[in-house]
């Protein structure tokens, strides 16, 4: 039991570590690092379920008859692409945020947004009182 | 033919809206539509008297539950009243609007036509869903009429109007409708009702109460506030609201639900109407008291309407033949009486721009037709012979007696006394008090005279109608017996 499931458990810990970084970190780039780790760990889960004990890579060669399952490999190839695409877009947004706000720390941004809102309200009150 | 009855006012409305450049064509258009509609409605009588109920399904938005129109005696009577009075209101409206040179007259007549279409839809609704649809349509179509003046007051009044009517109709009426549908699986209006045998007395009482209070147009206290608020509207609109379409649609709805959803016998058996009946009894007394305190003529008439409507509700809740017949008659009689009073109020406003009762001293001599008509209308509302109103009050008292509700009889009589107290002094002021000094100067210069002919003729016609209805009381009674095939 222990040995058979141990690697799943490690993978679960890895996944949760990634998820933790996403949620706990306030730095937008670090959040994306977390997402990356989360997704990559899920990939391990997929690939490990495709393994057949004593099998080889699913490339047909004479004299080999036991192959690991190719389907998870295909799925994960696709998923890796999806992952890098998300990373690129996320980073692009983070860069734009930095250009607009001068920071990529969530707390600082929230503060500035609140400030914006205050400005909006002040503007509103100015107009109201002016009338 | 049913399509025509519904489509005609709509078509008229569209035609009217296209004629905004030429007022004469437009007003003729309105009038012709009104007359045609009245004739069309009358055309239904032969088949209804023969016991048929022409039916038409327009569409089926919800599986097994269509927009259905059915002509039956109760609805036909309401349609007759509404379409008949529409002719007069149109004539009067043309005079009033031109006399006061109001703006947006085209929009006014367009909305008017839509309101009538909605009223006809309510009259001929074949099930509760259809009724609800046209009920809401009426609310929305009359909203621009109420806010016609467009000033702050009008908007505030309009908001109250729309707020109360929509909230009560969605909050209570729609809910009760859905509940009924969930219980019975149908919403068709059927003789003897559909709820009988499906629900116990408790649920029936809750449902009936929700329906009654959900019909905000019936102005049952405490949901009567919209009616005085809507007084900001021009007088033809008030006439429409009070006499022709809106409040009548409200009480008619309650009547129809009592007769065709619950069934008279079912209400009588279960006593489901108790709460509503006493609420109505309270309203009719309280409203009369409030009316006494109002100096503004239209406000006083508004509270009078609140009280008179509750007569209809009381009649419906009595759940016996005399009560229902009295209630139905009250719809017609009160319509005729109240429209007369409003026409008079409008005529006074057009002629003198006076709105308060205390300003009316001595005007009776200057405007004899108007004040005479007001007197006749008042008598009809009070319920004194030889006016039509006498019949309805009589049957309502009979119904109360049949039901053994002696307290109720007392309240009805008390209310009639109050009616005398708040209506007749107005006429008295007009005829028996001298003109105030500053007005006398105007009067000598002949600046005060009767309102334009367009205004005076309709009010004379309706006043005559009040008298005529007394003569037709028997015929109406016979007709209404169609509702009770067994008795």
């Amino acid at each position, binding site marked *: 039991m222990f040995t058979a499931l141990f690697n799943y458990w490690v993978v*679960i810990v890895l996944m949760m570590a990634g998820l933790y970084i996403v949620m706990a970190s306030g730095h937008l780039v670090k959040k994306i690092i977390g997402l990356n*780790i989360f997704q990559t760990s899920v990939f391990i889960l997929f690939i490990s379920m495709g393994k057949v004990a004593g099998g080889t*890579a699913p490339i047909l060669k004479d004299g080999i008859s036991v192959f690991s399952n190719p389907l998870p490999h295909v799925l994960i190839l696709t998923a890796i692409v999806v992952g890098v695409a998300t990373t690129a*877009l996320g980073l692009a947004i983070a860069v734009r945020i930095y250009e607009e706000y001068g920071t990529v720390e969530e707390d600082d941004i929230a503060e500035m947004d609140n400030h914006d809102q205050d400005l909006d309200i002040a503007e509103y009150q100015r107009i109201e009182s002016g009338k | 033919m049913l399509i025509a009855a519904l489509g005609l006012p709509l078509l008229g409305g569209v035609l009217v809206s296209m004629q905004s450049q030429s007022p004469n064509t437009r007003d003729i258009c309105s009038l012709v539509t009104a007359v045609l509609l009245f004739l069309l409605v009358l055309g239904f009588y032969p088949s209804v008297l023969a016991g048929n109920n022409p039916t038409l399904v327009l569409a089926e938005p919800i599986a097994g539950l269509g927009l259905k129109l059915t002509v039956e005696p109760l609805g036909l009577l309401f349609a007759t009243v509404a379409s008949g009075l529409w002719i007069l209101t149109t004539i009067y409206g043309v005079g009033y609007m031109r006399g006061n040179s109001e703006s947006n007259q085209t929009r006014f007549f367009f909305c008017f036509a839509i309101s009538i279409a909605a009223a006809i839809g309510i009259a001929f609704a074949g099930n509760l869903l259809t009724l609800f649809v046209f009920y809401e349509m009426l609310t929305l179509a009359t909203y621009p009429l109420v806010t016609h003046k467009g000033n702050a007051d009008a908007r505030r009044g309009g908001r109250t109007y729309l707020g109360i009517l929509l909230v009560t109709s969605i909050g209570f009426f729609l809910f009760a409708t859905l509940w009924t549908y969930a219980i019975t699986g149908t919403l068709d209006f059927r003789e003897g009702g559909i709820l009988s045998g499906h629900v116990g007395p408790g649920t029936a009482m809750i449902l009936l109460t929700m329906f009654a209070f959900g019909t905000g147009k019936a102005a049952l206290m405490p949901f009567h506030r919209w009616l005085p608020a809507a007084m900001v509207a021009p007088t033809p609109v008030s006439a429409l609201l009070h006499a022709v379409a809106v409040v009548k649609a409200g009480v008619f709805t309650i009547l129809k639900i009592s007769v065709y959803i619950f069934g008279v016998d079912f209400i009588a058996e279960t006593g489901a109407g108790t709460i509503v009946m006493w609420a109505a009894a309270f309203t009719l007394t309280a409203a009369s008291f409030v009316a006494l305190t109002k100096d503004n003529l239209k406000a006083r008439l508004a509270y009078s309407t609140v009280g008179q409507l509750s007569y209809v509700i009381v009649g419906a809740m009595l759940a016996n033949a005399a009560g229902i017949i009295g209630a139905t008659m009250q719809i017609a009689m009160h319509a005729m009486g109240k429209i007369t009073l409003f026409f008079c109020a409008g005529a006074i406003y057009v002629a003198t721009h006076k709105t308060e009762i205390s300003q009316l001293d001595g005007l009776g001599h200057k405007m004899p037709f108007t004040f005479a008509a007001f007197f006749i209308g008042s008598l009809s509302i009070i319920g004194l012979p030889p006016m039509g109103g006498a019949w309805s009050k009589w049957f309502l008292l009979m119904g109360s007696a049949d039901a053994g509700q002696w307290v109720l009889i007392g309240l009805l009589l008390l209310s009639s006394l109050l009616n005398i107290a708040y209506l007749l002094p107005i006429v008295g002021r007009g005829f028996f008090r001298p003109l105030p000094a500053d007005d006398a100067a105007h009067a000598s210069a002949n600046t005060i005279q009767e309102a334009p002919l367009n205004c005076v003729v309709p009010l004379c016609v309706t006043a005559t109608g009040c008298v005529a209805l007394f003569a037709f009381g028997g015929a109406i009674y016979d007709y209404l017996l169609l509702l009770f095939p067994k008795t």
Partner: protein
Amino acid sequence: MINMVLLMLLLASVYAIIRLDRLLTAVLLTSLFSVLVASIFMVLDAVDVAFTEAAVGAGVSTIFFLAALAIVGRQCKPTPRRKIIAPLIVVSATGCVLLYASLDMPRFGEPLAPVHQHVAPRYLNDSAAEVGPPNIVTSVLASYRGYDTFGEVGVVFTAFIGVLMLLGAGTRRTSIEPPTPTGAPKESMRKKVVLKEVADLVIAPVLIFALYVQWHGDFGPGGGFQAGVIFASGIFLYALIYGIEPAQRLLPPRRLAYFPAIGLLLYAAVGIISMLRGGNFLNYSVLVNDPLHGQHYGILAIELGVGITVAAVMINIFFSFSERSL
């Protein structure tokens, strides 16, 4: 069981990433993480995936991260204590669900597990006769599940459009500065002579290797995606050493921006031709008279489409980032 040492290294690197406030190190550790994962994939017989993970995780992603860090700075604030609790609760709850599930999972490497029973055997047994390539992953990727791969190219293309919308195509600078006729090395470049020498030696083989991977995907690990990523890496290397401008002269961004679309359209064209020839979308068997030949041509064509799109997208995104950092 997967190699214990690798798993422990993974745990250690993730722990370090959580603790680190210096993002540059964190990114490099993430890169290491990817390499380790790639090794695990290798152990698990997923050679294609290992190849890709190494190229993407340790290569392209890392470059993107570095480019972004160059703009937004390398330091991050430590997480305040009070902000740890909520994530911990969520993560523990999720972890518990996963642990609960793991109790019923098939034993690792079990040949009788359901995954190996239902769908996969057909791929293993019949793909040679039905599709052709010895690399079964390629058969499944390009033919049996070619539609997924089409979607995957769509994802890459979408990311390209998104980055372009946000950051621009990387054309701004070249339009301002007139292109210098000869690649006069800047001051800083002179100090990188050794690097330059090495790069000259490496870049050409990298690009050739990319082409090899592109065409060899039928037989061994590889294919359009890996080739595209490797090709892009070669260009990154060139740009890092010689500067962005020479790289952009080599591959003008304005023209390069067409290529993602061209790759995607090439892929779709194969599918549409098969529709015109009476088959369903992406049914390569109808492309020519012999189904097996048709499969072969189809796979070659779509792999080329994948390669073009992926390489062009990666290079474009890189240019977009690098323009912002200057």
